[in-house]
């Protein structure tokens, strides 16, 4: 039997406020299979974003394990975690986090530049650019390649962020309230697009959201309360 693309095993995370320990996650177990779209529901402060950051190797758990394809990766060194994050995970954030100085296509291409030397990138520049254009076309932005984030609407910015997350063909996309900053119509469009990508590419998605309706459309819903999975 194949191991889940991404899994958390008894993951705990605490922060320290002076000498006082503040537990955020109290032993979370979670697995996301290939091609599965999982919704992570929870109130503010439940630890959703913290869990997402731990799963994306942006932070390290206080205890417990994070596994990619069944392999423990949580105790890797900083450089190795960065490399793994680049190859394995795509991030989509509520506030897009595009770099304002770059155009839409440059923001997407940035993902391809991260672990490559100048020579490597130069050799592959044509194929990389073609891939970036194709993905931007896939998210409906083929006419907006040269626009900077300030010249794009909220929905368009989020599409650029999604295209950026997809360029490196990640195994898992971690989306932190991707529609939280959009109006309902645009949010629907973006979600339809995410469902389509999930279907077509068989990508695993872990979707943090407050929206019960949206969560119900996912393959599975995981609820987080007070740092624990409750259902």
């Amino acid at each position: 039997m194949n191991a889940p693309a991404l899994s958390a095993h008894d993951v705990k995370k605490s922060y320290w406020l002076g000498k006082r320990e503040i537990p955020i996650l109290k032993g979370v177990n979670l697995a996301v299979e290939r091609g599965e779209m999982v919704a992570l529901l929870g109130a503010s402060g439940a630890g959703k974003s913290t869990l997402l950051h731990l799963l994306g190797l942006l932070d390290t758990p206080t205890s417990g394990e994070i596994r990619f394809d069944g392999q423990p990766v949580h105790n890797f060194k900083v450089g190795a975690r960065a490399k793994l994050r680049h190859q394995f995970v795509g991030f989509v954030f509520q506030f897009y986090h595009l770099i304002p100085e770059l155009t839409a296509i440059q923001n997407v291409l940035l993902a391809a530049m991260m672990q490559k030397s100048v020579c490597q990138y130069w050799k592959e520049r044509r194929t990389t650019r073609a891939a970036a254009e194709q993905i931007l076309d896939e998210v409906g932005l083929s006419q907006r390649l040269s626009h900077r984030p300030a010249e794009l609407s909220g929905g368009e910015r989020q599409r650029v962020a999604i295209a950026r997350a997809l360029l490196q063909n990640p195994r898992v996309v971690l989306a932190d309230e991707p529609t939280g900053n959009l109006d309902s119509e645009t949010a629907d469009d973006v979600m339809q697009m995410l469902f389509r990508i999930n279907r077509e590419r068989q990508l695993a998605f872990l979707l943090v959201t407050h929206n019960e309706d949206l969560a119900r459309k996912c393959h599975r819903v995981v609820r987080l309360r007070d740092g624990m999975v409750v259902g």
Partner: protein
Amino acid sequence: MYRLFLAARYLLSRPINLLGIGGVTLGVWALIVVVSIFSGFLRVVGEHVRSASADVSVWFLPDSARFHDLQTAIDEVPNVAACSPRLVHFGLLNRPGETPPPPPLLGRGAMQGGDTPFVSVLGVDPDLDRKTTALDAWLVAVATELRVKDLQKPLARIDGLPAILLGEERMARSGLRIGDKLALSTGRVERGEGGGRSLVQVTGEAIGGNRQDAPVFVVAGAFHTRHTGYDGNTAFVHIEDLRAMLSLPPDAVQEISVKVEDPADTEATADRVQRAVRRELGFERGQFQRAPLAYSWHERHRGFLEGVEWQRALMKIILIVIMVVAAVLMYATLSMMVAEKTSDIGILCALGGSPRGVMTVFLSCGLSITAIGIVLGTVIGCLSAIYLEEFRQFVLWLAGVDLFPVKVYNLDRVPHELDPLWILQVAGVALLVGAIVSALPAFRAARHDPLVSLRGS
């Protein structure tokens, strides 16, 4: 790849970076231009001093010294080509009948010499002196109307009166012409019968004048070395006239000029001449009190040349302050950039960037600003130094303002000397300073928690 790409984008999209580039450019420019002018000035001044000096000068000869005895000893020293005697005296020049002006204030510099009536009167034998100095060249390097009539006998008596040669600038400034008479007010030390010393006024009785008045000389012409201070403060008279005037015995000498055959061996020759003179005068080995000294031209003017060199060193220190200001500017602009870009740090980490990569982005920005500033400063600095004279002429023509009054220093143009080693040192220091001030904000960026950036929005 992303490090250089982002650094370039940050650099190009923020006009405030021009401030950092401008600061580094200004610092490098100033250090190159000003030091180049000082180096050029030092070289030219060295040449001027050299042009007015004998290769080796023997000083502090005792009263008993006689030139022909010493000449025999000096001529035997290896590398000596010729030597000539000199008497050195001082006095105030004025037109006969006029009251002598007061002596100058202490400390009037040699560079702007010639604006005081006080002169160093050198008694020379032209036939011998032209073999040890560039006397012939000095005599022809003047305006035609100030040139001596007989170049072979420039200090021959005129109408029974002793001749005097003055610096061209002094003559022009005082409105003197050939044939004008000048009185030399001076005194000399006379030993009394009891061994005591007293200062008595020198009169012209011994050289054809009367016993009450100061000796009178006729201006025979002008000379022009390239050393303005020397020209302004020096007057040449015939050594026989000065000996007679000062009641010195025949063949008495106070200073000897020596010409060497191989200039590269001047210092060693000076040592050998000194030993020969001391031996000839009966000074024992190790006896230094009142012993004659032989100096090379460079040693003789060491104080003056080192003074200019110290000014150059001081200027370097002052100009480094500009570099410090540029560094502060750069630090401020880079710190602002890091503060503004903290949100980008989070996403870079999420995309697979490491703290070291983030640091490299900002470090590359700082180093690029420094490198551009260094290249611009060096190019503009070199061009400014080379074309400063043309620029001075242009400003003079346009606004009538002389940025660098070259005549004050007897220069033809603003001097410059570009020293590649100094340019490399300036570039190296600028790069080091740039690296340090870039590293601090870059290091801060690398330590920034990406989660704070990602949550912050």
